[in-house]
């Protein structure tokens, strides 16, 4: 049985932990709000981009001059996986969920005899995937130093991916990230970005201008070849933002749980502590009384 002093120390340390988790929860809540705002601010751009893309593909009508980024290489032998996770842990199952989805996908691809390459964005996914697939990881993008996610970060990744594609490094590119549904639910998602198939893009049907006859300056094909790389960057950017919001949401609920657990633990420990203190007092009283009786 632990002594009273041990119990006291234990309670103090759990209390300190509770304070930390509580603080982390509050920090996550504040960051979540900011991340959500950022994700919302970025939405108009990706929506409009989708609409413009839909318009222009309609104009070209899937003609032969569509760039390879859109139509693909015609093969599906080499797959590139971009796995976006958080830089930090302590956010429940957030990172492992994304990594698990990616791992299942990799296993399936390998079983089909495909070649797999991986780019890890974020430290945690890298740590998990490194165990099994270290040889397939091409690169690890570190965003730890980045204070606020900018389009520049996404653009840098997109540029690397497109460069690799142009060199014939892969045929199909899939993006893994976590979709932010709500604070308590983030859905790990796989999205194909190259070739930009109809299934992968969130492009809504051509809006208001659907039946307008556009004049293109320069040629539609040229605009499209400019637009598609940008669209890839936008998709990656959106994934990163959703991830950031999801991470904070997951962290918030994980820390909330931790705070509550610490509270339960303190209650239990205090009961044990009080009981033991009472037992000791009783014991001392008995000693005094029986001592007095013996006289």
């Amino acid at each position, binding site marked *: 049985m632990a002594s009273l002093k041990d119990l006291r120390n234990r309670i103090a340390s759990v209390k300190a932990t509770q304070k930390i988790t509580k603080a982390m929860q509050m920090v996550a809540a504040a960051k979540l709000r900011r991340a959500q705002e*950022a994700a919302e*601010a970025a939405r108009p751009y990706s929506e*409009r*981009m989708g609409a*413009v893309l839909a*318009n222009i593909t309609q104009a070209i009508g899937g003609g032969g001059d569509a760039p390879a980024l859109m139509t693909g290489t015609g093969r599906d032998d080499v797959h590139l996986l971009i796995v976006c996770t958080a830089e930090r842990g302590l956010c429940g199952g957030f990172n492992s969920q994304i990594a698990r989805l990616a791992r299942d996908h990799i296993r399936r691809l390998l079983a089909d005899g495909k070649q797999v390459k991986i780019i890890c964005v974020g430290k945690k996914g890298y740590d998990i995937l490194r165990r099994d697939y270290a040889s397939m990881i091409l690169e690890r993008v570190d965003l730890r130093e980045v204070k606020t996610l900018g*389009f520049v970060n996404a653009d840098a990744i997109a540029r690397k991916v497109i460069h690799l594609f142009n060199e014939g490094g892969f045929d199909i590119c899939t993006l893994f990230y976590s979709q932010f549904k709500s604070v308590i639910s983030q859905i790990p998602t796989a999205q194909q970005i190259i070739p930009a198939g109809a299934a992968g893009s969130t492009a809504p049907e051509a809006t208001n201008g659907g039946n307008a006859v*556009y004049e293109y300056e320069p040629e539609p094909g040229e605009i499209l070849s400019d637009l598609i790389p940008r669209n890839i960057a*936008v998709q990656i950017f959106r994934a990163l933002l959703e991830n950031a919001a999801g991470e904070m949401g997951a962290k918030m609920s994980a820390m909330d749980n931790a705070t509550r657990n610490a509270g339960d633990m303190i209650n239990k420990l205090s009961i044990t502590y009080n009981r033991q203190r009472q037992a000791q007092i009783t014991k001392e009283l008995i000693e005094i009384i029986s001592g007095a009786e013996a006289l």
Partner: protein
Amino acid sequence: MAEAFKFELVSPEKLLVSEQVESVVIPGAEGEMTVMAQHAPVMTTIKPGVVTIKTAGGKEERFVVFGGFADILPSGCTLLAESATHVNDIDRADLARRIQEAKEDAADAKDDESRSKAEQFLSQLTTLEGALLPA
């Protein structure tokens, strides 16, 4: 007074402008163009330059954009900019950095096509810098 139309300036980070305007000057890839209400539908890429907006209230605002495109319809105009900042907030160091990068790109270009592209971009940037300096 000229008819007003809806103009939106969007960068990946946020929606910068969304209001009724009288006219917008866009640095199109094939020359500057002024968009007013009831413009024929045009889709154009834009080069680095200054977008000048004349709002329905008669105010004039200027934004610096680095590439992107414009989707122009009779009912409105949407400008998707790769990055956009208000002229007052422009960061000269950032511009200088972009120019430096463009220079490196031009120097590293492997074939003629990409070199001419990089050089074109560089000249657009330097023109932009020149246009901003007296401002």
